[in-house]
């Protein structure tokens, strides 16, 4: 009951944020965005045709009427049809979001799990050669641009100049084997880059916890290192770790997917959104940006509830 009340209160508190995000993105992407009138019309349109199309696209309405329409669409989750392809927006997203998730999730999960493990090892051997090696590699991972890693891995693993193990580009998935072959290179690239940032972050969190008194006491009582790291250190670090993971989810879905989808020619939601911005496909844009904002508010809610789950001292009041 307390949890339900808390959830509702948090959702209400998320409304200003939702309004802000939808307003800024509406202003930028829809109001100042590309005008599709002359793209959709044929040659030599008459004034009546132009006016009709503008009315159909909603361009003739005043700003706040259009914004209010958008909010209504977001509330009912009905965004109409894509301007460019005529496909229903819900159908388009239903088709592309699973592709993006399938592409990104393995790398995201591995990138975080491996980073936490490396960070534990590094922190355990703090300022020894193991620590220095892991941190050195993570600075390298941080310093290479994601795009360079993607291109380099593609040359090394997929092209005929390298090992030629995996498909070079595209998304031609019919079986689980196809799936693994297609995500292999993107996953390796995203894990490589994620390891750089994540390992550093997790290590600094863990090292700070390691200097606490209760860890020293546990050590003095002879708790073995593996148990100490798991029970006394990792569990106490869960709050910053979870915050980082949950908050990176909404960004990963769009931004992280975008580069890989553009480069590998994979029909995911990142690519669809990017194309929608450049062509001014407003129904698609409105849907993606609105849903991302909702995802952010939900992410905040989830972290707050999870805080309570891992730390009983956190109050939900």
């Amino acid at each position, binding site marked *: 009951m307390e949890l339900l009340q808390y959830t509702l209160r948090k959702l209400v508190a998320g409304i200003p944020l939702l309004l802000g995000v939808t307003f800024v993105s509406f202003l930028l992407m829809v109001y100042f965005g590309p005008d599709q009138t002359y793209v959709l019309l044929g040659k030599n349109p008459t004034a009546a045709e132009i006016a009709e199309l503008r009315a159909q696209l909603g361009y003739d309405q005043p700003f706040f009427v259009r914004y209010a329409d958008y909010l209504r669409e977001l509330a009912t989750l009905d965004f109409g049809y894509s301007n460019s392809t005529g496909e229903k927006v819900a159908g388009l997203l239903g088709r592309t979001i699973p592709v993006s998730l399938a592409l990104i999730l393995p790398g995201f999960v591995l990138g975080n799990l491996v980073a936490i493990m490396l960070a534990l090892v590094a922190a355990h051997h703090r300022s020894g050669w193991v620590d220095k090696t892991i941190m050195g590699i993570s600075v390298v991972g941080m310093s290479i641009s994601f795009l360079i890693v993607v291109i380099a891995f593609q040359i090394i693993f997929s092209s005929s100049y390298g090992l030629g193990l995996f498909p070079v580009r595209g998304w031609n998935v019919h079986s689980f084997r196809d799936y693994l072959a297609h995500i292999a290179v993107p996953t390796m690239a995203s894990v490589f880059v994620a390891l750089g940032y994540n390992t550093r972050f997790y290590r600094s969190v863990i090292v700070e916890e390691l200097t606490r008194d209760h860890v020293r006491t546990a050590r003095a009582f002879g708790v073995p290192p593996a148990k100490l790291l798991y029970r006394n250190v990792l569990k106490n670090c869960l709050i910053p770790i979870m915050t980082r993971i949950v908050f990176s989810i909404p960004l990963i879905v769009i931004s992280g997917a975008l580069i890989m989808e553009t480069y590998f020619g994979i029909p995911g939601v990142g690519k669809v959104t*990017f194309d929608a911005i450049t062509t001014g496909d407003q129904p698609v844009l409105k849907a993606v940006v609105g849903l991302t904002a909702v995802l952010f508010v939900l992410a905040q809610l989830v972290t707050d509830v999870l805080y309570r789950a891992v730390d009983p001292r956190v109050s939900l009041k």
Partner: protein
Amino acid sequence: MSAATGLPASAGREAQAAAATRRQTLWSKAAWKFRRDRAGMVGLCIVLVYFVAALGVWSGWWATGWAEVAGGKWNPPSAEHWFGTNLIGQDIYQRSLFSVATAFEVGLVVAVLSTLLGAVLGALAGFFSGKLTDELVLWLMGVLDSIPFYLLVAAIAFALEGNAWSMHVAMVSTFWITTSRLVRGEVIKLKNLEFVEAAHAIGVPEYTIIFRHIVPNTLHILLVQSTITFVAAIKSEVILSFLGLGVKDGMSWGLMISESTLEVLAGFFNNFLAASALMFVLVMAFNMFSDALQDALDPRKVS
């Protein structure tokens, strides 16, 4: 004999330690600590070499022929073309050297502006924490944080109708947030200290307190954050240029890499390697410099 040779060395070390304890300001201690950080010094030297290269480009001393078609298609490296030529016969060495200046231009503009913006808004939010100003700034940060970065850049690029500065505007409008959050936290801590109370008591105006007495005390955060922002700007430029949203007129590593995506499939790697290697070394050096700076300026940091 061994005692005699050992003495000057230990005396020198003691003198050094004494000198370190004598000058007890934050900055001199940080400078002393920074100079002892080998990785940081190496990083700083490399960054300075790049900076000289950028200055040379700005002054027109070298890399003036980056746009000229000077050779054949995909010439191998030679005395004339150090890194070979690209698809249409332009000199890759000159193009990658010219891009150093572009990287510094993007990095400096974005780092300076977003640090300034972050400092001002963060300080105001922190000083008036819990009041309307703070709520507004926090709301703005939340809103801008919730729009996916590349979509925001694309949208700003279109709203500004392909203006060459749209990339900078977009980066500044998101990169100030982290700085601002850190400054806000520090200002909340600082504003309850005695020196602020004293300033209040003798009737110093509020905004003078904020910008003359509190903000200078967050300078160490601003310095470290601006190096981090610099690196982020260079890295974002590459991806934005690849997506066609970045550098409009001129040359950059991002444009070279995006050119090279066609070439690598044909087995020609010089363009890609030149841009990637130059960029990697600069970013790596900057990261090492930034880490050392952080270690030197933050006495509480556990590493």
